[in-house]
């Protein structure tokens, strides 16, 4: 579905991502975990070209994505929706207007917009709050509005950048449940970046561990996989202590 091939990214003198290769399978929930500064958010933001890689290729459905420009790039981005830790809702728009803007950008006919927005809000359980403004909502509700905005255009991939980092455990569980349903009911591929092992374990099928801008390992989460991931985390810490220069990918 999404393949990153030897992608690198540098911000000034800081090497954020070094020659990372990764494959995200269609329909899976794929976690990317790592400490702050590991490069996981940068990697995620390169998948929809919010950040352009300095080197390497991003291939979506067999099509090299990082050479697209203008209308083609914008169209491709509409199939790769994204949610953020900070929600990034427009404070001066109501919940309804925050969601409908995604349909307007996707040029969905006006007569279909209201029904689609309401369907999306119903899915995240917020249809009764459609006339509220983000300032009137809790953190969990804001994130659910952001999810409604992301799925209203029926994307094939949902990129989640630390979507639960600002939320309490109960709200985190609610948001993760919504993401799980999106994956199961609509078959949307989800790529979830988090620094929280519990979040990743509870929802992901495969997890990629990152450190210092490199992929350390990708682990399958299965009955024994959690133990494997935890073992991997221990090895990962050792690996970091030895300087992280051993090739583990």
């Amino acid at each position, binding site marked *: 579905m999404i393949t990153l091939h030897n992608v690198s990214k540098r911000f000034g003198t800081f090497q954020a991502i070094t020659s990372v290769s990764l494959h995200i399978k269609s329909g899976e929930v794929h976690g990317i975990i790592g400490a702050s500064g590991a490069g996981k958010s940068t990697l995620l933001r390169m998948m929809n070209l*919010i950040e352009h890689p300095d080197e390497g290729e991003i291939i979506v459905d067999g099509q090299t994505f990082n050479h697209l420009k203008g209308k083609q790039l914008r169209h491709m981005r509409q199939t790769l*929706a994204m949610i953020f830790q900070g929600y*990034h809702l427009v*404070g*001066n728009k109501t919940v309804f207007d925050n969601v409908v803007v995604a349909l307007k950008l996707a040029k969905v006919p006006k007569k279909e917009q209201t029904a689609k927005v309401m369907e999306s809000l119903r899915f995240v359980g917020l249809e009764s709050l459609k006339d509220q403004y983000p300032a009137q909502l809790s953190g969990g509700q804001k994130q659910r509005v952001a999810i409604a*905005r992301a799925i209203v255009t029926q994307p094939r991939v949902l*990129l989640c950048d630390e979507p639960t980092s600002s939320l309490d455990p109960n709200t985190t569980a609610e948001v993760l449940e919504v993401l799980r349903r999106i994956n199961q009911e609509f078959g949307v591929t989800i790529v979830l970046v988090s620094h929280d092992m519990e979040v990743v374990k509870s929802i992901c099928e495969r997890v990629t561990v990152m450190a210092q801008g490199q992929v350390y390992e990708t682990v399958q989460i299965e009955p024994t996989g959690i133990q494997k991931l935890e073992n991997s985390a221990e090895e990962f810490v050792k690996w970091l202590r030895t300087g992280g220069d051993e090739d583990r990918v």
Partner: protein
Amino acid sequence: MFDVLSEYQAEIWVSIGETFIMVGFSILAALLIGLPVGTFLFLCRKGQLIENQVVFSSLNLIVNIIRSFPFLLLVIFLIPFTRLIIGTAIGTAAATVPMCIIAIAHYSRLVEQSLLDVPKGVMEAAVSMGASVKDIIFKFLYVEARSSLVLSMTTSTISFISYSTIMGVVGGGGIGDFAIRYGYQQFRSDLMIYIIIIMVVFVQLVQYAGITFARKIDKR
């Protein structure tokens, strides 16, 4: 007070009309040109959507130079340009030219500052949704910055009223010019004070209207 004002009623109304013309055209220029220039300044900044250092530096320099001019000198400096545009350098119509120039520079800087206050994440979300630059400006930036843009226009309008008071130097007239000619130069200090009171009331009304409207449309 009312005796003096009614004595000069006709002249005062004409002067208020002239001030309205000068300030009105300035507001129009600020909205039609200052707003796009300010938006462009913001978008061309380092790290922004259409980053372009050459365009940003050039625009920035022009705006700074215009705003650095003492306004009276700007009016004099622009006389040849005003004559080219209007055909004369004297009168209310001619006075609107330097007023519009300073209005564009003044408001564009405030627009740039207002847009800088929009959370970067909002633009990031817009980009991730496949928004074009035009979409980002009209569907995200202006919506999120609208109360700040209104407050900036309020501040600008009050500055334009202040600038208009010296337009008598090129025969622009206006309420400030009336206060100088009829009040100060004819030793009618009372008349000058009454005109100042009228201007203070006028500025208060503009400020009140601006703040009320900005508050009403701010839902953040």
